[in-house]
């Protein structure tokens, strides 16, 4: 699993109301949610995104409500992977269930700036910052979560279990 794209950096404690405000929770459609991604942070935030871009956040990303619309909005906006210092736990589960990959970088997150070009090799556990020339590691994704993600998310997992 590899990703290449330009980064968009947001801050610490970005909550799910910032990712997708409650007034947009009248739909479960990924593309529709994506149009309003980060509307609670800044009006029109999503306009800066080109599909394949990489979201970079600080500490406790995705805190607040349990709304699965939050990872869906990020996917819908065209960002397939998030890098952060740390994540809120409900958001962490939701993201993997929805097929959004989250990588936890700890303090190394400071080595990535807004607009940097990154190349991520998940299996090798390496991020190449093409802008700065640095190579950055990340905490391994628990095998349990990676299996879930590569198996198509939780819906597919339960489907197989129900069929058995």
């Amino acid at each position, binding site marked *: 699993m590899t990703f290449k794209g330009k980064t968009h950096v947001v801050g610490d*404690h970005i909550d799910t*109301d910032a990712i997708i405000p409650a007034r947009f929770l009248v739909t479960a459609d990924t593309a529709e949610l994506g149009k309003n991604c980060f509307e609670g942070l800044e009006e029109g935030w999503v306009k800066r995104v080109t599909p394949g871009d990489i979201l970079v956040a600080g500490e*406790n990303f995705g805190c607040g409500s349990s709304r699965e619309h939050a990872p869906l909005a990020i996917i819908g906006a065209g960002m397939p992977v998030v890098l952060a210092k740390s994540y809120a736990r409900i958001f962490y589960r*939701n993201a993997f269930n929805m097929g959004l990959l989250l990588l936890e970088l700890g303090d190394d997150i400071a080595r990535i700036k807004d607009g940097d070009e990154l190349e991520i090799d998940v299996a090798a556990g390496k991020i190449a910052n093409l802008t700065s020339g640095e190579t950055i590691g990340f905490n391994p994704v628990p095998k349990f979560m990676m299996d879930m993600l590569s198996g198509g998310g939780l819906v597919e997992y*339960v489907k197989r279990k129900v069929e058995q």
Partner: protein
Amino acid sequence: MRQTLAQKILQRHTDQPITADGQIVQCRVSLVLANDITAPLAIKSIRGMGVKKVFDKDKVALVCDHFTPNKDIDSAEQVKVVRDFAREMDITHYYEGGNVGVEHAILPEYGLVGPGDIIVGADSHTCTYGGLGAFATGLGSTDVAAAMALGETWFKVPETIRVNFTGKLPEHVGGKDLILFTIGQTGVAGALYKALEFGGEVIDDLSVEARMTMANMAIEAGGKVGLFAADEKTLEYCRAHGRDGDEPIAADPGAAYWKEMTFDVSSFSPQIACPHLPDNVKPVEEVSDVRVDQVVLGSCTNGRISDLREAAAIIRGRKVAKGVRFIVIPASPGAYSMALDEGLLRIFLDAGAIISPPTCGPCLGGHMGILAGGERCLATTNRNFKGRMGSLKSEVYLANPAVAAATAVTGFITHPGKL
């Protein structure tokens, strides 16, 4: 092994021996919950899973409380999806209309949750039931869909932070102040992935409703659950709400905690969480010059009958300040009905308050009291994130019900003792 409350409850619901924190265990659940915002996604996932029926139609609760009474066509369509699903699956505990209230207020009142249970809900404030001694936590819609299908889910056994409260609570200081103070100490990520377990003499004396107020906001410290031992008070509450056969449950003395904190509450003031994070907490004296446009009394945190009584006692015989909107939202039909019988609604109406039907309403910026740019609200709710109650340029302060009533009277954030 001497067990924390989290370990003890999880062990009752799994056949895998729990030997350490951090272990991943598969647990049977007692109740699975979703609401009008999260259930439609869960239903979509259940269809995708090819599931034809839920694991137990008596152990699923669907509560249409967030945007109800439906605020617009889109929210009406979402409730319709939930209603049709409830009919198709013959769900026993479906709530909409006259029996609906804020989910975390009604489930305890209807006797659906109790000590030792595991409850998962597609709502982050599911942790409220920790006040009854239940391991209760929020999950996303698809995790909840899986739990509805299989009757089980996975948990990482959390490390526990034990918080002890000693001393004597001053007047006008209660559960809301204890939890706001705690969040101010830990920070919004201080209990990330952890269980919070509350105890000490102050907690022993605290009402069950106040314990639920505290458990409710464990998530605001990043916590997975906020746990209280189930004691005689808990059992009395459960019996009064139609439950039978519950038993006390508590952590073992000498259980291993990740961290322990002890606070003497004797000199506490009412606590205020200032914009824009719940950990930006100050004693009321430090923010008493802040003017407000709106006051909201309600929510899964502080919309119960004890909260309405506390606020009514302050505002009785007084008037809401000119230019301030005081919105009172009983969190459940039960609280509404008792407030009517006890004359509390009369007190609020005479003071000039607006009384709303039970709903989550403005707490999450849904409806029934949205803020314009530059407006400021003091609320008994649980989150003051930027834009949470409306415009990105509005502000929310969090406080207890007595402070809310006093603030409605003066138009400035006010210590109830100063009236």
